[in-house]
């Protein structure tokens, strides 16, 4: 039992503060407003317009086959809408998920020319997705890692709006597709996620070495505490009666851990 108590003591020194942070952040996740923390307070809920025949009916578009032959080899060609106009989106290299690295080119369906999403286009796309009271404050091209969206592996345009929650809109710089909105409510929740996941390096992950180490030590702390509690139970230290106080006094003098704490 002495070993169990030793483990419990020193494990608590090591992980005690983090354990408190886990509980506080966990409690926050329990009580937080689950809609607010999505960061979509000023996101316009426009359904993506269907890509229809009529969009490209009256002007002669260049056939996908011609486009595919002219550009770098692609594994898919998709008709997408950017600011309500159709474009071909060529994917040369596809990531398993959208936020993984994807090598893409946006092509004008009528001229067959590559389209670069510049500052102005990015601002317009952001404005289209925004229904808040603010105006655009800054537009910056960013390369990953990006603090607000740590999982994103593609270059993005960050469009910051001046409003009460400091909305930021993220647009994929090669495809022109909206990635997400972020704002102060989301960042506040992200702070608690950072604490809970011990993601102090902002990797957007809970598989970092520090949390693995702490979780293992916490296991030792909890299991030693559990054994200790069971032992206390067997020794009769949990009794509901007036004699409890008496027992408590007794146990203080019995247990070795009481050394050096008597006043």
């Amino acid at each position: 039992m002495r070993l169990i108590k030793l483990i419990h003591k020193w494990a608590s020194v090591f992980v005690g503060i983090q354990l408190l942070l886990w509980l506080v952040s966990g409690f926050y996740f329990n009580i937080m407003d689950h809609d607010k923390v999505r960061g979509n307070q000023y996101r316009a809920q426009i359904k993506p317009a269907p890509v229809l025949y009529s969009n490209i009916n009256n002007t002669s578009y260049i056939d996908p086959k011609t486009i595919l032959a002219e550009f770098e080899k692609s594994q898919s060609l998709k008709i997408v809408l950017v600011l309500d106009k159709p474009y071909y989106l060529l994917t040369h290299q596809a990531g398993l998920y959208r936020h993984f690295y994807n090598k893409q080119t946006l092509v004008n369906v009528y001229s067959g020319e590559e389209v670069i999403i510049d500052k102005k286009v990015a601002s317009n796309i952001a404005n289209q997705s925004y229904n808040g009271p603010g105006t655009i404050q800054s537009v910056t091209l960013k390369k990953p890692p990006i603090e607000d969206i740590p999982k994103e592996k593609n270059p993005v345009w960050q469009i910051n709006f001046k409003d009460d929650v400091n909305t930021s809109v993220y647009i994929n710089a090669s495809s022109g597709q909206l990635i997400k909105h972020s704002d102060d409510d989301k960042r506040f929740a992200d702070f608690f996620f950072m604490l809970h996941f011990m993601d102090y390096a902002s990797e957007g992950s809970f598989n970092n070495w520090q949390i693995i180490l702490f979780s293992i030590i916490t296991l030792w702390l909890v299991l030693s505490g559990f054994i200790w509690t069971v032992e206390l139970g067997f020794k009769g230290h949990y009794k509901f009666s007036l004699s409890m106080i008496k027992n408590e006094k007794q146990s203080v003098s019995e247990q070795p851990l009481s050394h050096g704490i008597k006043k």
Partner: protein
Amino acid sequence: MTLLKTSRKLHKWLMLFLGVQFVIWSVTGAYMVIFDIDYIHGDSLVTQHQTPIDVNKINISLTDIIKKYPDAQNINLAVLIDSPVYRFKIAQKNVMLNASSGEVLSPINEVMAVKLAKHYYSADDDISEIELLTNNPPFELSKRHLPAYRVNFEAFGSPSLYINAHSGKVVTKRHEFWRLFDWMFRFHIADYQDGEPDNLLLFWLSIVSLFAVITGLVLTYYRVFKNKRKRANATY
């Protein structure tokens, strides 16, 4: 009573009731952080083939598609194993057709589903079971992916690939480690109903646990830091 005595008493009694919850939290938490989330998500179960579209195989133009299917939406041209295919949507229905022959491929049959599953699956294991799911999807498959084939492989962790019957794409994948992760998460957030962390049980557990941990920290402070100068007296 002194702060130390009160803390010891509270810690002892609170942990009598919370002990099991702390074991659940630490065991499930450790599981979730130790196993790499990309592994849990089965990313290593599938191969991301980067097969380019062979332009010479395309015989059907976009105009042909639009003439035949004037209501086609979200048209795209991609590769199915090694043939170019058009995929699009008509009135909420997904259609796939061969861009060389124009043959409609959707919905795919079981033979094709097996062929696709083997193509995308990253290892070389045998298929143990295949089933077409049209309604009542299992917990691990979203309803929007129906109809889909579930292809189970005979391998460690019982992996399954779910292949959409219209698009022929792998819509999701699962193995026991992910299924276990889902359970671990539910226990971690003390949710035995809908999988959201906003339940009352967790609310009260967290509040009482806060007291239990704070009193524990008080004990640690007295035992370890305040006693430093009295170390000579202490047995450990």
